[in-house]
């Protein structure tokens, strides 16, 4: 399978703080990768580098054959093909759900409004909230907002979806409705990189689990290996902490 994301010896600094240390990771088309690790381990920073919401300071990032540099044109090209879902949803508050979904297809893909709306309704149906199309984000529950955010990213028909702790800001009873949508998406063959603490989701959906700590990738394993017999002491400690209760 073709590699859609290649990270090579990627480094990232915040001032003198070394946030990412020689990160190497290759993700194939169709693969589902879950990234986990303690807070401050660099998980979010790493996936935010993939669509250049953060700039890396060393090494190479190649997404869909385009290397990310200061070239704004290439950055825009990559961002069009990489959808992202944020912890805090980040729906545009002054636009209705439908306007949120059609904005980028109209402006970036130059789609006609009618066509963009048809696609928007298709994805809203897929995330099971077509009846909310004309509401504003503030009128929806957290779980609904996050499903809208997923639909918004899908409207651009991306090659890859990045999820940055998509359920961490949700009330417990809303987590499963979002994970269900993500699981459906995985079954349909979407390439996914998810930073999440939802180990049940990781176990059932991930092809590989990337465990990070202190800015490094400590281990990469299949879910079966990772949960049954983590290779590193740090992963064992981490799993002990999050699975204890």
């Amino acid at each position, binding site marked *: 399978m073709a590699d859609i994301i290649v990270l090579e010896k990627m480094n990232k600094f915040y001032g003198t703080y070394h946030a990412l240390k020689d990160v190497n990771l290759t993700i194939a088309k169709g693969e589902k990768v879950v990234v986990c690790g303690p807070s401050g381990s660099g998980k979010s920073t790493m996936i935010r580098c993939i669509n250049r919401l953060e700039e890396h300071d060393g090494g190479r990032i190649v997404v869909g054959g385009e290397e990310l540099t200061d070239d704004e044109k290439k950055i825009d090209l990559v961002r*069009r093909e990489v959808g*992202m879902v944020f912890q805090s949803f*980040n729906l*545009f508050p*002054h636009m209705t759900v439908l306007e949120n979904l059609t*904005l980028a297809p109209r402006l970036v893909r130059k789609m006609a409004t009618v066509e963009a709306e048809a696609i928007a309704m298709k994805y809203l149906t897929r995330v099971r909230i077509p009846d909310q199309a004309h509401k504003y984000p503030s009128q929806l529950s957290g779980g609904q907002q996050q499903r809208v955010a997923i639909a918004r990213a899908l409207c651009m028909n991306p090659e890859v979806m990045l999820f940055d702790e998509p359920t961490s800001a949700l009330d417990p009873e809303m987590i499963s409705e979002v994970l269900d949508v993500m699981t459906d998406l995985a079954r349909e063959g979407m390439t996914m990189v998810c930073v999440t603490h939802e180990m049940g989701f990781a176990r059932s959906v991930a092809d590989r689990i990337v465990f990070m700590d202190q800015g490094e990738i400590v281990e990469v394993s299949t879910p079966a290996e990772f949960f049954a017999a983590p290779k590193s002491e740090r992963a064992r400690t981490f799993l002990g902490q999050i699975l204890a209760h």
Partner: protein
Amino acid sequence: MSFDLSLIATSLPKILQGLGLTLNLLAVSTLFGLILAVGILLMRLSRRSWLVWPAKAYIYFFRGTPLLVQLFVIYHGLPQFGFIRQSVLWPLLREPYWCSVIALSLNTAAYVSEILRGGVLGVDKGFVEAGKALGLSKFQRTTRITAPLAVRLALPAYSNEIVSMLKSTALASTVTLMEMTGVARTIVADTFAPYEIFIAATIIYLVLVWIIQTGFTLIETYANRHVRKT
């Protein structure tokens, strides 16, 4: 001292003859000021220091000196220079109306650019990131996301600035303009009854401020309709 209520009643329509000029000064200066403010804002928010520095200096100067002094410098000060009297701007600078508009516009632009900057800084970074992640260009992110949200955040402070501008137009009376305060001062000179005449002027200013405030409340309610819950 006697207090003559009927004098208030008879002076009201006379002062209202200055209403047109007051509103004219307010509208024209607010419009020019807003256009200028957006330009200064863009310079102030730029990453290039040679654009930021002049914007900061401009804001510092116009917020740091009294509007009355600025008006006097433009009206009484500039004509002392021969090259000003010979310049293409002289037909404007010789007119008290245009001097007032220029002073009011330059002054309000400094405040409005800072009001708008406050709005821009208040926009949650997450919305801009979502725009980036969707592939929107910098221009598209600015016009579709940052600007509409920043304007909403800036509205309350902006309405305050318009009210302040209305009151500032009274300064135009010091350079001979017969807007409402100018008319009131003339009537006072004739009647020697400053109390009643300025009370009449006060009533008109308060009514105008009420209209401005109510107007902005309606605009804010409309602009923030997305915040309301079902």
